[in-house]
């Protein structure tokens, strides 16, 4: 039961990483690509971390995975703001369709 739930979470996580990468390749400009990276990849990583936590042997290992996810979440939030400000400072116009 736990194993199949874990597998489902891992597969869902991979799916979001895939969608995030597709977005990174298909989306038209730096801002829209940041949307794909921050949201889809964080969610993908969160699901993978959840799936791995179900298989962790110790509580500490599970907690460590959770801390990794929180750190990546913080880092990617900061990174997306930095990239967006950089693009704005370079006066890169948002794609308008």
């Amino acid at each position, binding site marked *: 039961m736990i194993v199949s739930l874990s597998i489902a979470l891992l597969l869902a996580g991979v799916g979001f990483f895939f969608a995030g990468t597709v977005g990174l390749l298909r989306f038209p400009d730096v801002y829209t690509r940041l949307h794909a990276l921050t*949201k889809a990849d964080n969610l993908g990583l969160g699901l993978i971390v959840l799936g791995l936590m179900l298989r962790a042997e110790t509580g500490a290992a599970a907690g460590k995975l959770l801390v990794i996810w929180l750190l990546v979440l913080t880092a990617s939030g900061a990174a997306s*703001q930095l990239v967006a400000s950089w693009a704005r400072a370079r006066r890169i*116009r948002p794609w308008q369709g």
Partner: protein
Amino acid sequence: MISQLAGLLGRFTLFLGIWWLLTDGRQAGLMFGGGIAAAAAMLPLAIAEPRDAGKPRALLPTVLRGLVLLPFFLWQSLYGGIDVAVRALKPRMPLAPSVFDYRLRLPPGPAPVMLASLVSLMPGTLATVSGARLRVHVLDATRNYQDELELLEAQVAWIFDVALQAPQAPAPNVWQHSTEQDV
């Protein structure tokens, strides 16, 4: 004084907990980790400027209040991830991006940066702090984001225990479409 002590103890517990996680709960390095955790817990006393009036802000209450709202943020981030994944995978890729300014009611400091990070996890929005405004890039310009942003801003104010103030930015009152790229 009491609140400072509580903050110190809270930080020490938090850092020791992180040490415990990183060492897989092994006892061998606990003395070392305890010393480092104590030093890290005391560091803010040395580098933080003294708070002027009444409101002491310790790290721990902020962390705890953040944890209370974590389910909401996780839910929104799940929705945001699904939204952008669907847009990326649909063959005709439904995008109607636009940029808006949101006038911040949060005082300057870490709170607006936290708000911008959270906004970037919400469905369809990506934000950077620009002075007293939040510059928000949205994937779907046909939607109105004002209410969501106001709610989120109020929650961040609660987490950081700061009061919302009247918007400082001179710009217009409501959502304003800004295509010009002022920096």
